Structure formats: C-alpha cells, structure tokens
C-alpha cells in the first residue's frame, strides 16, 4: 500500500503549477548524504515506496533512511473509454510535488560507499534525474 494522508480537508484538488526550483527542503537536513531531484515531477506514493524498499533491502538494518517528501496531493484520472464531462474523476493516486533541488531521501549512519550504492538504487526507481549530495559545512 502506498503512502497517503490520513485525513484531508477536500477530496480533490486542482492541478496547480510547478514553476521554478525548490527553495525549501533543498539541503541535507537529517542524514549524512541525500538524493536530490534535478527535474520537476509529481512523485507518486508508490514510487516513493519503491525507493524506500529498494534502499532498505540493500541496507538491511544498517543506517537510517529518511524520506523527505510526502504525497499529499490527490491526482484524479478518468477511466478509459469515458466521454468527457460528468464532473471531475475519482482520485487515482497521491503525489508529492517535486521541483529541481528537492531532497527526496537521506541516509545516516553508514559510510559514503554504502550510502552511495543505496541512493543509486533509489535513483533507479525515481522517474527523474537525481544526484547525490553531502551535508553542508557548519559555520
């Protein structure tokens, strides 16, 4: 079962726009290494879950994996061979809005090699180009 909110105010949402780059959640905040998106996408709960499973199977019980995005946007889709009209369709999946720069996953408590391999496995499951980034310096 994929990720979705427990409760929402409204069942459906308008599509909205995703212009520009991420200005929040664009740096490694909790872990040592992170996976950063380089493109804009609606990341579905199922895709996030696939990434999580890919990483956790590789990490087994080592380290800690942080998921930095949550699918809180309902995306509706009309069934096939349906005529237009008759109102907005039912919710098909839940998505997280991802802009270039958004940190998708973070890993803590493992070495750079292991983190790199785990994040590469997640990146393989992602529908966008990603890159590995480290922590910022303390000032």
């Amino acid at each position, binding site marked *: *079962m*994929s*990720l*979705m*909110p*427990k*409760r*929402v*105010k*409204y*069942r459906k949402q308008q599509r909205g726009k995703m212009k520009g*780059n*991420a*200005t929040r959640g*664009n*740096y490694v905040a909790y872990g*040592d290494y992170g996976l*950063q998106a380089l493109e804009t996408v609606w990341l579905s709960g199922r895709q996030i879950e696939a990434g999580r*499973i890919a990483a*956790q199977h590789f990490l087994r*019980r*080592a*380290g*800690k994996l942080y998921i930095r995005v949550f699918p809180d946007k309902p995306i509706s889709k009309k069934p096939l061979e349906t005529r237009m009209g008759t109102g907005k369709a039912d919710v098909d999946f839940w998505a997280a809005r991802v802009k*270039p*720069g958004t*940190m998708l996953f973070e890993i*803590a*408590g493992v070495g750079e090699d292991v983190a790199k391999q785990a994040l590469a496995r997640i990146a393989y499951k992602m529908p966008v180009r990603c890159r590995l*980034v*480290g*922590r*910022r*310096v*303390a*000032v």
Partner: protein
Amino acid sequence: MAKNVPVIEAEPRDRIGTRYSKRLRQAGRLPAVIYGHGTQPTSVSLDAKSIISAVKHGTHVIELRVGGSSETCLVKELQYGWMGDDVIHVDLTRVNLEETVRVSVALTFIGQPEASKRPGAVLTHDVQQLEVECKVRDIPEGIRIDMSQMEGDVMTVAQVKMPAGVIAVTDPHYAVVRVVTVTEEAEGEAAATTAAAEPEVLTAKKEAGAEGAAAEKK
C-alpha cells in the same frame, strides 16, 4: 582555534549588485561583505577556492587583507545557490580574538559504542553540529566524540567532552548519539498503511448536511 589563521586576500568591490556578483563568480571569486564593530559595511570579493576550502576544513576565523590593511574576521553566514550546495556569498564580521561569540562547530564521531554491537542495533547521529560559546581564539575546528566511551544507549550534549574554554549552548539533555534497536520496521509500516485505504475527508459531513438542508427547503 586553528593554530594558523588563514590569510586571505580581498579586493574591495566598487560595483555591487546581481550582474557584477555573477561576473565575479564566473571569474573564480566570491562576493562577500564585512560588517560589525560599529563601522560601515564593506563589500569585498575573495578567492572562491581558498575561502571555501578553509571553511570546509572547519575554519571560522580568517585574517583578511583588504588593500593595505588587515582585519580579523569571523565567517558569520554562507549563502547558497539554487541547488542548495554551492556557496554564492559570504558574510564576515569583524572580531577581536578576546571577544566571546556563538558559533556552530562540526562534530566528528570516532569509535563504536558497545550497545551498537547488539543484533538489530542501529547507531544514529541526531546532531551533526553543536552550537557553542567561546572566545574567538578558542573556537575549535571540530569536536571529536569518542563513542567507545559511551555508557547506555544515549549520549547527551552534557556528556560531550568539550575543549577548554568552550561551552555548549545547545540544551544539555539533547541527544547527540543514540543506539536504536530496529524491529521489523517494514512489516510494521505495511500494516499501518493498509489500515487506511482512503483518507478521511474533513468536509464530507458538512457537505452532506448542506445537501440535506437544501433538500428540506425544496
């Protein structure tokens, strides 16, 4: 503080603004501003490689040579670019070595705690940098935490051995390192997610009530 304070050459900037800053970055320099001690802020540019390398090695204090004069400065803030990792601007503040300041110091973890050798135990570092208060001359490059000395499953800020003349400002009860025993997390999460197939809609009842009221009016 680092035994050798790095000396960095700076050039005053007479033209400020986005366009000129962009040109500076393309030429391998970094725009910066120096302020503090009741004097006018000065816009300068620094060699990008030397300042970033110094900061990455834990340097907080630098000796800045602007024109003929020399100033001791503390790296106050770094501004990052749109991808959140490339430094685009540096804020420097004038300090004297006897002044007390608050800075964030990176933590370095060495050794392995006994508790983490248990099956299923995962070591988590909750804090990667610690806010400390000390004199400018006492600012450490980093704080080493020997986890092999750790007693129990949690090491708090109070248990961290601080260098001489350095006081931790962060809450002393705050956990720095924890050993967490992981139980079958994947199964637990799966069970939690299957419980709710569809989210609860908070406005659903109100809509039904409104429809009912409309029907009654008819």
